[in-house]
């Protein structure tokens, strides 16, 4: 089991009488990619800002790469952060911007230049290194922000809404980059996002927050299955010429009700889906696809954040 790189205990943040984060606890292991999910106002950004020492917690504590929260400057030296809605000095070039931040992290001028050039290459901005940031597209700025978050070779990277405002291609590009970072560097990545299908692919585990609390955490499969366990309906797609036979076979199974729409057979069973699948396969019917209601992360997300602000 890889070591723990992020340990959060009873972390809370109050703004006046409003609770933004309420006694949040979780641990993240080395090399893990964690999706931090939740509706708007769930406390994701506040949590990331506390863990990156930009905000002071009202209660609780945490440790990043073994460094306790009482040493914020040491924590900042070990983390990389892409803030939500990060701004950029538009008159600077990408190279100047990364070199400046490299120097603030203690790199010598030459070292900062080499690091900046390498990172710009890794995020696909090598050919725009000498161009002013003002001319960058939103996706390019996000990639530059990710490069900035890696300038100090961090143990933990926090990415707050890295795909915000990007088209689907841009979102996929950023999440591929996130996966590459975690795999190539062994860096722990905590990514806050709303693009759930991509989270299913990019993240090894998820942490869903609602109204300042963690409502569920675990691997993507665990979270998804936990929500799907109580569900008893599913959708089978079979070849059009076998729809009638599938419906007939399934109606003979005790406790199963069947609805047919085009080539999709929707079944509801009191005993789960095993008997349904067995009956179809035993009858020699070709099963093109099978989907259980609630077996996607988005369903789990919606079920667990019901009543959230979004």
């Amino acid at each position: 089991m890889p070591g723990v790189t992020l340990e959060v205990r009873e972390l809370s943040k109050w703004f006046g009488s409003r609770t933004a984060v309420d006694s949040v606890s979780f641990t993240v292991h080395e090399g893990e990619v964690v999706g931090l999910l939740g509706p708007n106002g769930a406390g994701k950004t506040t949590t990331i800002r506390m863990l990156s020492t930009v905000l002071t917690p009202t209660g609780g504590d945490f440790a990043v790469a073994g460094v306790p929260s009482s040493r914020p400057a040491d924590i900042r030296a070990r983390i990389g952060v892409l803030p939500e809605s990060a701004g950029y000095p538009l008159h600077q070039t990408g190279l100047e911007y990364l070199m400046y931040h490299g120097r603030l992290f203690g790199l010598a001028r030459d070292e900062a230049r080499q690091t900046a050039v390498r990172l710009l290459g890794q995020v696909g901005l090598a050919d725009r290194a000498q161009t002013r940031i003002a001319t960058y597209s939103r996706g390019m700025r996000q990639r530059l922000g990710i490069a900035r978050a890696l300038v100090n070779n961090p143990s933990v990277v926090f990415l707050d809404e890295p795909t915000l405002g990007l088209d689907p291609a841009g979102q996929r590009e950023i999440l591929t980059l996130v996966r590459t970072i975690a795999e190539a560097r062994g860096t722990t990545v905590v990514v806050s996002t709303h693009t759930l299908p991509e989270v299913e692919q990019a993240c090894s585990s998820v942490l869903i927050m609602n109204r300042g609390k963690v409502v569920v955490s675990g691997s993507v499969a665990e979270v998804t299955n936990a929500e799907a366990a109580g569900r008893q309906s599913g959708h089978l797609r079979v070849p059009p010429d076998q729809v009638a036979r599938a419906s007939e076979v399934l109606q003979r199974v005790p406790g199963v009700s069947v609805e047919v729409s085009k080539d999709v057979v929707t079944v509801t069973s009191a005993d789960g889906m095993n008997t349904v699948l067995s009956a179809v396969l035993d009858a020699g019917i070709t099963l093109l696809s099978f989907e259980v209601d609630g077996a996607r992360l988005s369903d789990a997300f919606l079920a667990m954040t019901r009543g959230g602000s979004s």
Partner: protein
Amino acid sequence: MSARIIAGQECRDLWLSGRGPVLTFAYAVLLSAVTYLAATNQILNFLEQRESVNLVLQIAVAVGVLLTLVVAADAISGERERGTLESLLLTPVSRGSIVLGKLVAAMSLWGMVFVVAVPYLWVLGKGVAVVGEALLLGLVVGTLLALSMAAIGLLISARSSTNKVSLAASLFLLLALFAPTQLPAMPTSSVGDLLVRINPVTAGMHYIGLVLLKGHTWTQDLSYLISPVVTVVATAVALVVLGPRIVRLTGGVGSG
């Protein structure tokens, strides 16, 4: 070290992005017009050479203080609004170094304003042995005033909820400090003299006038420099003590 890196970048941002050169150019145009009128205009050229030098030096100090304050007032609240402050706060650099770096950048504008004033003072003071003294006076008093205004500007900027609030508060303060310099013969009564002395701007300007126009020695009216010096010390202490606490992601009173 970190403060030096920040100061270097802030100076590059100020002087290469266009704001610094544009402000300096506008100031140079103003100074050219005043110098030309003081030297040639039939109405204004009644001024004795010392008075012309004093006039231009006072304008240089006033504009220098104004520009330094405006740049300082934008330094933190402006970055906050542009979304670039968070990236800076996420580095291991101390808040004190951030403040110091920004202070140095703001002061670079005063340095440029002073340098630009040198040829104008030299032209107006040619023939009377006053240029050297005027330059030294301007450097000492102007630096004291610019430093204190830059520090006050940074404090206001760090505490303000928006950049507009920061700029408005700073300009109002400057107006309040400069307004008494336009009143006629302020120090003639004891109350007037007290008001001049406690206001660092009027005290500094009055001191320049006493040395340049009335030929007083530097030590003769040194007490007028008490309030500029006290203001510099007080604002520097406030920046050192409060800086780490008020340079944060959100501005305004009571923000998290």
